[in-house]
């Protein structure tokens, strides 16, 4: 009885968030069938992570911007600019790799502060500010690079993106270290879920039936460990995955549990009410954009390290992929709703679709068409879901 109610609740009450996971699983299954299992091969999984990591990093910052009720169209250009700054210092001027990294991060923070200033303190809509930024920073990139690509980066720099942690605990045909790291992660997840569940029970909140709870953890653990096994039997733990994992965990904590995160949701949900509740709206808006600049610079470093070059056209259209990831992941166009994990799953859906179609040999034009339709349907689902919710009132 309770089990049935729980299953139904899992699907209906949180259809907005659970729908996305179901869609993700369906898409993975679909493409692994269509590619004869190639999608889930060790080699492809690793390259999937490397190839889409920068979009996922951008989506973390973007979802915060979108929850706050803004948009950022400039991140693609910022990725190019930060990579270019690093390249000029490291490749052209022969400075150490870490100077390039710091300079790129600093550039990102400055760019964020610049855009945050116009949005928060001058009051220009983010759409306009970042549209201007998209042109401005692309122009600066060309300026900095004198319109030519710079390459190659030294190996220390490229290993940020293409390096692997491997053999730290010895290898037996598979990398033990990778497995241990993932096992620790899974245990942490299980412990955290159990703690949350206990807290909810203590406050008389509804929880899933015990069977369902255990099942959920077992499924998650199995999927994650299977993924780890694939990495371990190929080249080990990609450095990018560590960066991404740290960012996802940190920003999940920030959005869910920090005062700053709460204020972002409050501003996106009802700006006037947030202001009258004592939220320093301008300050929060400003830091949202600084943070976006920071994450865009990390994406810029990862991207330039992966291609071992800074190109004038780098990061083109990245902003659209990042925005699409957020909306597919359940963020609301009007602000106030969205999660980091949702945006990650949204990004992975886009990643699996492109990667799967590439493996099938589908050409770029078709890929674009399919991605466009997926984005449209995801938001249509969101709108439909909202109507359904308000009709139920």
């Amino acid at each position, binding site marked *: 009885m309770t089990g049935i109610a729980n299953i139904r609740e899992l699907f209906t009450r949180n259809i907005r968030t659970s729908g996305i996971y179901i869609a993700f699983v369906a898409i993975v299954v679909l493409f692994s069938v269509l590619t004869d299992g190639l999608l889930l091969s060790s080699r492809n999984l690793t390259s999937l992570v490397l190839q889409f990591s920068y979009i996922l990093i951008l989506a973390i910052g973007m979802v915060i911007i979108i929850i706050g009720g803004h948009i950022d169209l400039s991140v693609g250009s910022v990725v190019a600019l930060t990579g270019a700054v690093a390249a000029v210092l490291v490749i052209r001027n022969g400075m150490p790799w870490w100077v390039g990294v710091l300079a790129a991060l600093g550039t990102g923070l400055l760019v964020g502060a610049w855009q945050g200033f116009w949005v928060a303190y001058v009051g220009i809509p983010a759409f306009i500010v970042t549209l201007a930024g998209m042109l401005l920073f692309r122009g600066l990139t060309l300026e900095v690079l004198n319109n030519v690509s710079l390459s190659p980066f030294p190996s220390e720099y490229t290993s940020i993106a293409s390096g692997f942690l491997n053999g730290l605990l010895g290898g037996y045909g598979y990398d033990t270290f990778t497995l241990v790291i993932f096992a620790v992660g899974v245990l942490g997840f299980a412990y955290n879920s159990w703690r949350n569940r206990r807290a909810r029970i203590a406050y008389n909140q509804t929880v899933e039936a015990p069977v369902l709870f255990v099942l959920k953890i077992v499924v998650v653990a199995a999927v994650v460990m299977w993924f780890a096994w694939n990495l371990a039997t190929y080249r080990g733990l990609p450095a990018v995955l560590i960066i991404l994992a740290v960012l996802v965990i940190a920003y999940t904590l920030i959005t869910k549990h*920090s005062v700053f995160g709460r204020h972002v949701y409050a501003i996106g*949900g009802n700006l006037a009410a947030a202001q009258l*509740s004592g*939220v320093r709206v301008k300050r929060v808006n400003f830091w949202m954009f600084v943070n976006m600049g920071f994450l865009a610079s990390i994406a810029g470093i990862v991207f330039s390290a992966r291609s071992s070059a800074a190109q004038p056209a780098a990061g083109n259209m990245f902003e659209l992929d990042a925005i699409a990831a957020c909306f597919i992941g359940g963020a609301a166009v009007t602000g*106030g709703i969205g999660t980091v994990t949702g945006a990650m799953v949204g990004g992975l859906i886009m990643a699996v679709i492109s990667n799967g179609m590439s493996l099938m040999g589908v050409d770029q034009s078709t890929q674009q068409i399919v991605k466009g339709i997926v984005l449209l349907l995801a938001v249509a689902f969101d709108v439909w879901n909202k109507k359904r919710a308000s009709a139920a009132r």
Partner: protein
Amino acid sequence: MADSAPTDILEMRGITKTFPGVKALQDVNLTVRRGEIHAICGENGAGKSTLMKVLSGVYPHGTYEGDIVLDGETAEFGTINDSEARGVVIIHQELALVPYLSIAENIFLGNERTRAGGAIDWNRTNAEAADLLARVGLSESPTTPISALGVGKQQLVEIAKAISKDVRLLILDEPTAALNDNDSEHLLGLLRQFKEQGITSIMISHKLAEIAEIADRTTIIRDGRSIETFDMATAGASSDAIQDRIIRGMVGRDLDNRYPDRVSHPGEEVLRIEDWTVYHPTQTGRVVVDKAHLNVRAGEVVGIAGLMGAGRTELAMSLFGRSYGRDITGQAYIHGEPVDVHNVPDAIRAGIAYVSEDRKQYGLNLIEDIRRNISAAGLGKLSKNGFVDENEELKVAEEYRASMNIRTPNVLVEVGKLSGGNQQKVVLSKWLYTAPEVLILDEPTRGIDVGAKYEIYTIINELVAAGKAVLVISSELPELLGICDRIYTLAFGRITGEVDVPSATQEGLMALMTQETTRETQETKA
């Protein structure tokens, strides 16, 4: 039944409209005679507007139970267009005009006068609009943009729009709520004129004096049910007698116990302001609050009475961290100490809380749950190193749910799904958690039902019993007289009087609330 068709233009039979969890209307019957002005009275939330939305097709046939019989035929309206095609036109409380379009364009919006081929025939549009404007007694050019008109004239444009559709049954939802006396008088005259022309009107209004003056019959709606319909001719001898008759029907019980009893023990002064002057945020040089001074003591409920536009909300919001206006001058004191409050966080720190008159717009994040709305202004208290203690947050929310009697299964329910009364309790909880010294409550019972009003009054009493100072702004004088110890009157931005409640009357307050107008007109004459 069939032979009643000639005299009755409309019969609504057994209308029941359910929203999930709420029965908004239950077995409501309404019969309107041809050519009469029929008033519908009831408290906020009684179901009047819902009934009119059923009638006009906003809630389409099939979403409610019961029958609508128009001119003896059953009507099944799927949309507003269906009802308008049958001559039933509704004018909503919130006017639905496009500000940047002209009067003529607004009148024929969706019903454009066109030439063959679809191009708009501007000559015909403007000429016909001019005729309609003449009929409603509005002497404006049809090409004037709506944004250049005051609310009263906009209301007339709405009516002109309605008669352009060959209206036979005109529904007006609170048509005079935002109008001044002159405009209201004109509008009522217009309704009488329409009556002579054979147009039937249904009018929802809270202004009972108007109803007593103009209506032929009145139907009372209470708690989603139609209670009674009576002839105004037999309801009472005088306007006052008729109004009492209506109030008895609306409230359905004695008026004496609408306000809980309270023994007041005013203590030390908590808040005082002196020479408080506020200028309009965009219109340079316009004074909105002029050298206001007032004080509130611990354990005291002080009212601010003023007409719309007197500067009540503006005074309150300027006090609350300069959330309104510019060039604010004057001094505020808390416990006798001067305080400088430059923004909302300052105000919260100084112990001031402000509960807005518009809770959906300014008080709540409707897509967030109760728990997070309650904690929204008090996260500083709930957090350590920038992170929120969520267990504590949940505990706090649960405590307020219990103590404020917020009716909800748990505090994880979205606030947008609560009733007005429960939403107001959430806003109050949010501010109580900031542990304020003085609470400014702006129209705390607007749009909530009688039972919840009583609960809000009880909460106010508990607050002052705990030594808080409470400042209440209200448009309803009986409410202020029922819950306050003292009342300041505000007129055109100035404090025009301070009255102790035991010696106050509605008439006396109203005289003070309108005082400055007369003086100002005298000044301009002189």
